[in-house]
């Protein structure tokens, strides 16, 4: 029985079981028309193999680390929140139920815990924030994040470093700024004549880009970093923000 398209193609693509292939090769040994058919199909396959790579562009490098991020975090926190709500709900029902001993237990515990009249000075007020003069924002970088900085008339500086936190933190060290964030974009605006920013990016962030206008100052893609200036000895990139109009 001569070769049909299915078996011929499977022979070329090594998709035949060993016995089937042996049987076909046995047939080919004595069948000139089928051998010619196989030779022609091999020549055509080679031609396809020569032509298709003409479509190719250089492949960008991708790393598994670029796509691996902590899994199921949202789910875990969702479950925890659901458990807390469930526990609170059950406690409320038990407290409100007529004849429930929970009511009495709560009263006795409250009596035990009630503080004695204050005889000591009031505790000091909570310490002020680390840097009361700075404003800032922390956002999750997600799969990708673009931080768009303003270009003040007098220019500015952005000090960029990597940290172990989960969020990208942008602080305005000098000047005042407002922040607006979208799904994958954080836009910083300022009306001051110059501005200095301190930006800490999560070391594990997949892709974070810092831009000013149409220029890219900094790009972190997985472990790779491209920046408009190299890092200092402390690992901080001091990136100059060009004045508006330049």
């Amino acid at each position, binding site marked *: 029985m001569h070769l049909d398209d*299915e078996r011929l193609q499977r022979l070329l*693509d090594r998709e*035949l079981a060993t016995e*089937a292939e042996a049987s076909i090769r046995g047939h080919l040994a004595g069948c000139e028309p089928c051998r010619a058919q196989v030779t022609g*199909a091999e020549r*055509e396959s080679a031609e396809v193999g020569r032509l298709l790579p003409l*479509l190719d562009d*250089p*492949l960008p490098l*991708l790393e598994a680390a670029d796509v691996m991020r902590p899994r199921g975090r949202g789910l875990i926190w969702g479950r925890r929140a659901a458990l807390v709500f469930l526990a609170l709900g059950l406690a409320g029902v038990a407290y409100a139920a007529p004849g429930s001993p929970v009511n009495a237990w709560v009263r006795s515990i409250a009596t035990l815990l009630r503080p004695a009249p204050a005889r000591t000075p009031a505790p000091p007020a909570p310490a002020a924030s680390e840097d009361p003069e700075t404003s800032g924002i922390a956002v999750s970088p997600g799969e990708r994040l673009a931080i768009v900085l303003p270009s003040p008339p007098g220019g500015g500086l952005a000090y960029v470093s990597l940290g172990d936190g989960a969020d990208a933190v942008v602080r305005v060290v000098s000047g005042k700024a407002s922040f607006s964030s979208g799904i994958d974009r954080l836009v910083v605006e300022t009306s001051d004549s110059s501005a200095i920013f301190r930006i800490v990016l999560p070391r594990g962030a997949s892709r974070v880009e810092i831009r000013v206008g149409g220029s890219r100052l900094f790009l972190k893609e997985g472990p790779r970093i491209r920046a408009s200036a190299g890092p200092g000895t402390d690992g901080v990139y001091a990136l100059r923000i060009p004045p508006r109009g330049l």
Partner: protein
Amino acid sequence: MDTWMAPAASWARCPESADALAEPTPSFEESFVRLFRLHHVRLLRYLQRVSGEPELAADLVQDAFVRLYRRGSLPDAPEAWLISVAMNLLRNASSTGSRRHRLLTAARAEEVHSDPLPRPDESATAGDARHRVRSALERLPVRERRMLLLQAEGYSYRDIAAALELNEASVGTLLARARRAFLTAYGSRSDAP
């Protein structure tokens, strides 16, 4: 009647996969990294050839693997799963102009390339040939075009059938037909038997 049998999984062809099978219970992360290293390039090249947009292809491959990782376990046929997901993403990307715009405007000039760029004098000839190949491909029905490109990347018949929702027993016939149609459209084969 002769019988044939496709490999149990397409990566059974790869030498490294023998090690994978020998390992007692690789974690999901280990399996994922291995799958990524072995197969992301061919998925990327397939999408690049289908879409004609290397940047878009890279984004889609990344998205497809992100979705697989977030799934937390490997499906029965991970490669077919990846192809299906990537093709759905491509369909979505093609139908939403905003995403397309974002992808096209995202500068990737600083990407590290694995192959050297062609010299200027080579570009014109290569551009003409590329145009002819793309035109020939676009004359094929979508299914045959995708089959031909998947087969060129070495995907198994089982994965091709699963990804394109075909009967695996007829993949060879359809591929032979696609090959002939492509070469005829390209002009390097006459329709005469």
